[in-house]
């Protein structure tokens, strides 16, 4: 199991520490030392390509665990309250009324019958504590209802944005093909240093080309089966969506970013944060290249399900110029190549100096 799956429960005799924590970081982060493609089993203990691929597969699932996201943190907070002040075991029970009291010390509490005994004129400290705990039990119930309402809202929004989960698998991975050479050459020439990230990297053609040019190359590919082929060849690939990886990177660390494939399938409201995070993660005067499908072309090779379920669609070059400009990139210009038109275009830009 991934080492970032930290237990959030303390010793059973202690109060559990339902501590909200940040989301697990995606595997093969930029900070990890990069190695050139090829098998690395040189007998000196470095990870083999298979070991790296295995780690990437494990990490791809680990990031799907809700631990650390807002919903989990919310539930963790009131589960802690529930442990202290809530019913022993939520749900119908014939015995619950008989045993009576909420809270962990129910076994030592007096029954409801005993509590009806005549009190003195002044409330005791015990009475005050019990009133407070009953009030907290009500707070727990209020949180439960609130959680249900928020959950309903989230579900409705999710269905509007993304009718099904993990949409990339509906859209076949498209390799850069003839664009790999010109894009790699541009990145090698323009990068101020540091790693160059490519999303969606597919089977890693650009990563190989960048590595041949002496540039550290990182790939992001949400289709695990495709990523596996790149991983087993020694490419550094994270099985993830581009935005999820970019969000985990420290600011100003990347030496370049190439966006292809992902730019054709994200909805506009997803493209904007993608470009924003790209801008943030790039160093000053670092290049970005966008290789996108021309919507004026012969039409998409997407299947019917992808056409109907994938929110994003290819955008025109003029639209991309506007988006890059609004995201804060400068020196926006076409990136050209020789050869037959394959229905795609490319733009390059840089972050300001």
């Amino acid at each position, binding site marked *: *199991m991934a080492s970032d799956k930290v237990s959030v429960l303390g010793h059973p005799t202690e109060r559990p520490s339902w501590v909200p924590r940040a989301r697990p970081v995606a595997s093969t982060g930029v900070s990890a030392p990069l190695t050139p493609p090829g098998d690395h089993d040189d007998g000196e203990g470095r990870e083999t390509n298979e070991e790296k691929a295995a780690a990437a597969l494990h990490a791809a699932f680990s990031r799907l665990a809700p631990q650390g996201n807002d919903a989990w943190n919310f*539930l963790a907070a009131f589960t802690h309250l529930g442990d202290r002040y809530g019913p*022993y*075991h939520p749900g119908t029970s014939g*015995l619950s009324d008989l045993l009576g009291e909420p809270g962990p010390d129910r*076994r030592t509490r007096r029954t409801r019958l005993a509590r009806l005994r005549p009190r003195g004129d002044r409330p005791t400290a015990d009475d005050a504590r019990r009133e407070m705990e009953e009030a907290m039990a009500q707070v727990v119930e209020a949180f439960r209802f609130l959680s249900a309402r928020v959950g309903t809202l989230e579900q409705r929004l999710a269905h509007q944005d993304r009718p099904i*989960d993990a949409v990339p698998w509906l859209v076949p991975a498209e390799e850069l093909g003839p664009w790999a050479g010109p894009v790699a050459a541009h990145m090698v020439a323009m990068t101020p240093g540091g790693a160059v990230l490519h999303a969606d990297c597919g089977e890693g053609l650009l990563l190989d080309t960048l590595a041949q040019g002496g540039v550290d190359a990182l790939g992001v590919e949400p289709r695990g089966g495709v990523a596996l082929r790149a991983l087993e060849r020694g490419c550094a690939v994270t099985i993830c969506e581009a935005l999820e990886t970019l969000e985990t990177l420290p600011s100003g660390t990347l030496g370049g970013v190439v966006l292809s494939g992902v730019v054709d399938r994200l909805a506009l409201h997803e493209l904007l944060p993608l470009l924003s995070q790209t801008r943030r993660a790039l160093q000053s005067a670092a290049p970005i290249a966008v290789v996108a499908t021309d919507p004026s072309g012969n039409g998409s090779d997407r299947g019917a399900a992808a056409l109907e379920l994938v929110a994003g669609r290819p955008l025109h070059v003029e639209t991309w110029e506007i988006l890059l400009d609004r995201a804060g990139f400068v020196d926006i210009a076409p990136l050209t190549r020789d050869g037959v038109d394959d229905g795609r275009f490319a733009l390059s830009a840089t972050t300001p100096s």
Partner: protein
Amino acid sequence: MHRGDAIGRHTLRLRNATRARGFESHIYVDVTEEETARETIPVLEYPASAQPGDVAVYQFATASYMAPWLAGRGETLVVNYHNITPPDLLAPWDNHLALGQLRAQADLRLLAPRTALAVSDSAYNEAHLIEAGFAATAVIPPSAALGHDVIAVGIDAQVPARETPRGARWLAVGRVAPNKALQDTIAALAVTRAHDDPEATLLVIGKPATALYDRALHRYVDELGLHGAVTFAGHASDAVVAAAYAQADVLVITSEHEGFCVPAVEAMSVGLPVVAFGQGALPEVLGDAGTFVTSKDPYALSNTIDALLADAPRRASVTQAGRHRLDSLDLASAAERFVALLVALVESGGRRR
């Protein structure tokens, strides 16, 4: 009490075996389920019918008001322990479930001082009982292996249709819960399909324990390009499960934690080879009938499964070992042996010597 799950079946057999010995025996429940309402009595009705010399056998599997209620009563108490999933394995997915397991651990310690005898289904589980403070323990395997029902029900039932009838047929049976670590089986399938058997499939039979984990598994399947290769059948009837065993080539178990694992026994009953992550009670239950991996490396698991399926003599050998293992478990007499323990306890005055 659910008729369809192992503990429900076991409880019914135990009751019947007790009655067959001439004793009066009833099943009391805190929460009445419609499907078993005719077999059970609400526990609140017990005190009115309690007799001196009664022995209470508590089927312990989760947190329940039953534990503190029994702790406060005086009948001779036998705890039949079915394992508590460590809360650490559940917390990243469902805090509420994890809290329940934490409370179950506390219940176990609460009952230890006043329990005359604790019976577990494996030496692995027995160690938990000793750690929790139970002074008198015994090991008797559960009496609810499906194997016998397979023979009774027959194997010509329908199973969910698969799109690719060729290729190795992997099977996973059991609750779809985080501790079952089905993602590791899925990752290994991706490796097998990428390298050795592009048409291998996986059938997962079992009810989801938490929606978040179930959803993550479905998403993981999609992300690895295994849509169509992995079928989640959900909860299935005995006939469907029996047919699945008959049509599968291998049962794969990648659980992080197993207290016994009834599916492993079921697989041995029908001669199906088992490949498992060697942890918990699995080495004890399977013995030589199991083929074990010691890590969660998907390449290691894939290679182990592929090698086993390609080796007919080895498969025959483990099948034969499975039959011997079943003989030694002697499940057919498990219920009667349990009752014999109860009788001995009563005859010794309520305390096991």
